[in-house]
């Protein structure tokens, strides 16, 4: 399946469409904001825990900070921290600037896909040209 398009978020829900390159059928992933919020309000981690919770994790992540924040921002920060920890492929500043233009809520997914593409190509660094190549090949 290839990422094709996204719509939203609208009223807290996001639709992401994927396309099967063989049969041409589309599949949509729809997030249900009510279910997500209900479970999150229990102070649990969706998808299960691999590490113990941080002190006052729920309070710190639930309190609205000045100016507001994208609800996916924490996920992005976690992903970036994890990538650093794993010594993943590096990004040139120019490539990072281009990545910043991708909407925040799909950016982690796009970043992972590009890094995977770079790994498969054996590249140690993601440059602007590699980014353009990846976009063309994986359809972003």
């Amino acid at each position, binding site marked *: 399946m290839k990422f094709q398009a996204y719509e939203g978020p609208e*009223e*807290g829900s996001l639709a992401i469409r994927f396309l099967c390159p063989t049969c041409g059928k589309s599949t949509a992933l729809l997030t249900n*904001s*009510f279910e*997500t*919020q*209900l*479970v*999150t*309000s*229990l*102070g*649990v*981690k*969706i*998808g*299960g*825990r691999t590490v113990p919770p*941080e*002190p*006052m*994790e*729920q*309070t*710190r*992540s*639930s*309190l*609205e900070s*000045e100016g507001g*924040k994208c*609800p996916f921002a924490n996920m992005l920060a976690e992903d970036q921290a994890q990538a650093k920890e794993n010594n993943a492929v590096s990004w040139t500043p120019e490539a990072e600037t281009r990545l910043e233009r991708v909407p925040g809520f799909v950016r982690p997914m796009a970043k992972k896909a590009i890094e995977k593409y770079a790994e498969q190509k054996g590249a140690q660094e993601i440059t602007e040209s590699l980014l353009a190549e990846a976009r063309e090949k994986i359809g972003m």
Partner: protein
Amino acid sequence: MKKYKDIVGDGGSNILAQVKDQQRRLRERMARIRHKIAVVSGKGGVGKSAVSANLACFLAKRGYRVGLLDADLNGPSIARMLGVDHQRLAIEPDGVRPVTGPLGVQVISMGMLLDENAPTRWKSLVQDESFVWRGALEAGTLREFLSDVAWGDLDFLLLDLAPGTDRISTVAQLLPGVNLVVLTLPSGVSQMVVKKSLALAKEDHLSVLGLVENMTGLFPGEASGAELAQAFGVPFLGAIPYDPALAALTDQGQPLALSSIESPSRRALESVTDALMEVLSETALR
């Protein structure tokens, strides 16, 4: 590819185990605290925070290790009353380190997490319906204030609760066996609401250590706190006279226990502390 029905249980989130782990952490943290006491009323504006702050300090002055949890998440004031409102919390491996206030009282308050003048606002994926989740998020924060704060070994943990009888139920569910100190003003309206709290405590078999009357002398034709306590069969811990000097000191972040001022309100607070200790010693003997 997995289909919806191939996903067993909750898809790997293991929510039940996570909730049980929250409860285990709460139990373990609270096991190191001898007396957990919630200062409640049901009615707002009766002086719960000022009495909690001063009671905590008078207990600490007697050599007890005391913690004070400001459970009024939307109107936190304890940090200001104890003069620690500019201190920030630190996160350590064992949990969040509370701020050390006057006489070594360990303090935590939502005020320490917010910028000055910033209201308590919760993130919600569906902002229009955020009122639906607010109760759950507030209960979650209260749970974390109890379980994720490195309180250490304490003789007393006082909880200054927000108005509303529902808050009593929340704290009783989070902290089974919590003791209540109920506060009222000597006014008919205050007592009308406080009666609901006392009735709730009775129906739910909660332990009420006693009733305190605050701001005695402020209202003409006062309703008696002692009579209210008698009607509900709970100890009357004492009456604290209305004292503008106490209000002024509280505004300046100075607990009475630290000052050398001799006043009727100071004597009353000391007397309430004595009565509380007496009730606790009687409870221990039962």
